[in-house]
């Protein structure tokens, strides 16, 4: 947790206009955050543009970060994901749903063991395990790879309406399980 506390402290400094603090956030988080952008965009130039925009937002919005609302890593991750998703939407999400890097059955329960390194991840993994395989994969494809509803539907060879309702019910199940 000290990493989270350090990051929260750095963000508080960024909010006062401390560029070195922003650089320290970058040094600690850029590899993780670039990976998040790459999983959505699969293009280094596009992911680089996204990380630039995201760090400009971190610079501008650091004063809005509230450590009582959640960990700094989650806040940073969401800024990068939102920026990457906007970029994906702007280019028409030309993600190839048969891209081999999405992997076949990439989200088998064994892969989810990666989640279990931290306590919150272990709880989420156990809750994801309660979902059926396809709804679970739909949620993970959307979150990790930024796939839209139609892309998830194509990928899982399932009608769009079914996919939408899987995802909604899956999210409600997760909320209940995690509460």
């Amino acid at each position, binding site marked *: 947790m000290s990493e989270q506390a350090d990051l929260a402290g750095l963000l508080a400094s960024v909010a006062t*206009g*401390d*560029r070195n603090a*922003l*650089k320290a956030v*970058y040094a600690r988080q*850029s*590899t993780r955050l*670039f*990976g*998040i952008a*790459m*999983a959505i965009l699969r293009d*280094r*130039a*596009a*992911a*680089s*543009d996204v*990380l*630039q*925009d995201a760090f*400009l*937002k971190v*610079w*501008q*919005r650091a004063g*809005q970060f509230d450590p009582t*609302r*959640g*960990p700094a*890593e*989650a806040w940073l*991750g969401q800024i990068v*994901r*939102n920026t990457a*998703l*906007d*970029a994906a*939407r*702007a*280019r028409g999400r030309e993600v190839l749903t048969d891209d081999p890097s999405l992997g076949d059955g990439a*989200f088998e329960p064994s892969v*989810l063991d*990666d*989640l279990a390194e931290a306590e*919150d*991840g272990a709880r*989420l*993994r156990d809750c994801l395990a309660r979902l059926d395989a396809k709804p679970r994969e739909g949620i*993970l494809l*959307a*979150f*990790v790879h*930024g796939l839209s509803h139609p892309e998830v539907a194509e990928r899982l060879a399932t009608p769009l309406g079914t996919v939408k309702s899987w995802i*909604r019910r899956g*999210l*409600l199940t*997760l*909320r209940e399980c995690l509460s």
Partner: protein
Amino acid sequence: MSGTAEDRDLLAAEYVLGTLDARASAAVEAALATDPALAASVAAWTNRLAPLTRLAPPEAPPPDLWDRIEARLPGAARPAPRRSWFWQGWAIGASLAAAVFAGLAFIPRAEKPAYMTVLVSDRAAPAWIAQADRTGGITLAAVRPAFGEPQSATPDGRVMQLWGLRPGETAPTSLALLPRTPGRISIPAPALRPVNNMLIEISLEPEGGSPTGRPTGPILFYGRLIEAPPN
């Protein structure tokens, strides 16, 4: 944002998951500044799903990326000015939806733009609507909030400067100094021809514009041009 608490929480969930379309996602983002309940839902879902980011393999960014970020930070190493004073008139009671509609009504519908975006503040409040026409001209229209002063008013002794940054470029190009009176501004032949995905920024600069050719003051508003929807 209307609907039952359950609907709103699911909207927040799908916003965080990323499955909303561009329009719905932008609407949620704009509402966050003025809707604390929705913001709390979004924060809760962000925390619930955050462990999933570990499924994305970490990857080192290009080595020069920090330098490119630093080049876009405002000014020299000095504390960023507190900006809250600038927003007070706006923040109190302004309805975002009304603001956006007011702005849209402000733009004559004569010509179909090629690209457009909403320039938002660092609090995600929409402030300008930017459109690029097919001949390369750019038009800005200030969004008029439903209550209070327009947030696009310029403080004394400063000027707002418009910048464009094409995808892949490292430094923005100055496009115009904005007149003091906010309203509708036409730039028929900007120094940079608008392209899809071009970043548009407005920074606050000393009178006469940035002395360095790059933004030196805070970035007040920004947005990325996207292709205008048909019809």
